[in-house]
């Protein structure tokens, strides 16, 4: 019974959120609309990253994998003339396939060694981009990447329209990632994290499940890369360097990775702090410093991430009320 009630709460919350997201670009300035596009893309990037962390392995190659999706989709459309929507899918698949291949060396390692191994693998991929002018364009990368084709009178040069496109693609992706986590796959990923020996002893092929998590995470990271590439029109190896990876880590850590929404809260909060507040004050060039400070502050004062304040808020609100009023419950964050 209370289960169906929470389901209703979740739905009401989701619909409110969706309505808010739909009107959002109308309330923003042109440059803020661009930021909103990148934010939506980054949401997919960090949520896909979290899927990987469920198995207990933290990769430093996730942004490079995003780049694989970006490069592949750009190349499929630019050099082979594949229509952009299809090339995006192919780009994401290429990223997934890269993960399949990388699984073989990487999952011989665990923990710290995996972290370093994933970093090395990422650097190798970036070197390949830099070294091979054909087809990757070398250090300058690729430009004049075909943009998303117009649908009727809707042009995706307009950030508002691209925002809506990304919103649809990312919503569907998040839904899939959410379903995966809530299914037995999610349970198995968690099991690998906490007790892989026990999981093995009841028949879990630990390598296969690690590979599955890595591949899925990479597919959606690649998709976010493809969305990025066809919006901005140019990609280069520096865009996917380790500094960008550190931002992803900070979003995930500041938001918290225990819940599905934690990393989303992290990326949204930090984007607002950096790209909206600081930009307004003209401080946005010191982004690395701000991010560093926020990371240290959050590790010190909020080790469980921003996500941990929602249950606290909920408890606070419940505590204030002597009698839980059913009406106001709908408005609470689930």
């Amino acid at each position, binding site marked *: 019974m209370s289960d169906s009630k929470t389901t209703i709460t979740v739905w009401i919350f989701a619909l409110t959120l969706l309505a808010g997201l739909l009107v959002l670009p109308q309330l923003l300035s042109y440059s803020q609309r661009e930021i909103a596009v990148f934010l939506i893309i980054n949401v997919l990037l960090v949520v896909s990253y979290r899927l990987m962390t469920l198995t207990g392995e933290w990769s430093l190659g996730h942004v490079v994998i995003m780049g694989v999706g970006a490069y592949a989709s750009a190349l499929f459309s630019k050099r082979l003339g594949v229509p952009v929507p299809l090339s995006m899918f192919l780009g994401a698949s290429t990223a997934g396939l890269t993960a399949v291949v990388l699984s073989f060396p990487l999952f011989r390692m665990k923990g710290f060694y995996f972290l370093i191994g994933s970093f090395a693998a990422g650097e190798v991929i970036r070197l390949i981009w830099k070294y091979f002018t054909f087809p990757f364009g070398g250090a300058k990368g690729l430009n004049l990447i075909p943009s998303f084709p117009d649908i009727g009178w809707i042009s995706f040069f307009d950030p508002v329209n691209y925002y809506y496109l990304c919103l649809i693609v990312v919503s569907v992706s998040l839904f*899939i990632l959410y*379903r*995966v986590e809530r*299914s*037995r*796959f999610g*349970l*198995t990923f*968690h*099991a690998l994290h*906490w*007790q892989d*020996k*026990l*999981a*093995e*002893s*009841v*028949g*879990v*092929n*630990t390598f296969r499940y690690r590979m599955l998590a890595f591949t899925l995470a990479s597919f959606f990271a690649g998709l976010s890369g493809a969305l990025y590439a066809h919006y901005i029109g140019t990609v280069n190896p520096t865009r996917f360097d380790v500094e960008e990876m550190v931002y992803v880590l900070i979003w995930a850590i500041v938001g918290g990775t225990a819940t599905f929404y934690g990393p989303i809260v992290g990326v949204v909060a930090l984007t607002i702090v950096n790209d909206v507040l600081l930009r307004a004050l003209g401080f946005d060039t010191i982004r690395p410093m701000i991010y560093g400070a926020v990371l240290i502050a959050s590790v010190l004062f909020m080790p469980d991430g921003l996500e941990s304040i929602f249950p606290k808020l909920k408890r606070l609100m419940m505590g204030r009320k002597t009698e839980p009023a059913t009406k106001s419950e709908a408005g609470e964050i689930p």
Partner: protein
Amino acid sequence: MTQPILEVCDLSRNFGGLLAVNQLSFSVIPGTIHGIIGPNGAGKTTTFNVISGFYAPSSGHVTYLGKDISGIRTDRLAEIGLIRTFQGTTLFNEFSVIDNVRLGCHVSAKSGFLSRLLGADRESEAVATKKAEDLLAFFNLSDLRDEEASNLPHGHQRALGMAVALAADPKILLLDEPFTGMNPEETARMMTLTRDIRDRGITVMLVEHDMQAVMGLCDMITVMNFGSLLTEGTPKEVRTNPGVIEAYLGSAHHAS
């Protein structure tokens, strides 16, 4: 005579210079409770680790259901019904009690990626949940269904570990010291349950230091000392074997 379900043949396993298991041979008759005893460090856990595929044998082989399984991966063996438990309490501590057992149903609850995504696995998941609930009832853990596993008292944790193993549909179940840290009352209850497990047709291998439990439960006992087979027989035969008494007294002497 019946075909053995498990046969260990000249099995050895060494760690560097240390011979943890040395030329060990024995066979297990289906439908029995087969004990392995021996002083600390005799190589019992290592034997389990080799049989269950955690370690490859250094030499010799293991035959299960007539098939040579030496060196086959643990999860593959679990799929064909060879399941082991761990000496220390090993659980998914952060999971609820029911989720621990649900995870144990991994093999029987297999389903494709798309069907999981679309929720078409609902039926097989319902079956798994039902199976898990039945197992909790069997081990008297139903009241703790939604408790986090790490919050359980020790005895219940050990029982939960067995429930997870049983959820994997074993044909043969390797129990490594299942009764450690249990009070006599709990041990007695777990002994009854172990017999019930055997009576369901599951062969049980039991490593245990509680001699009363071992003697009370086992149909056949293999005694190990310093990695080798010391003797083998019914509880009665083993109890009166001078070599066994010597081994245990010797080690007790060592310890003091």
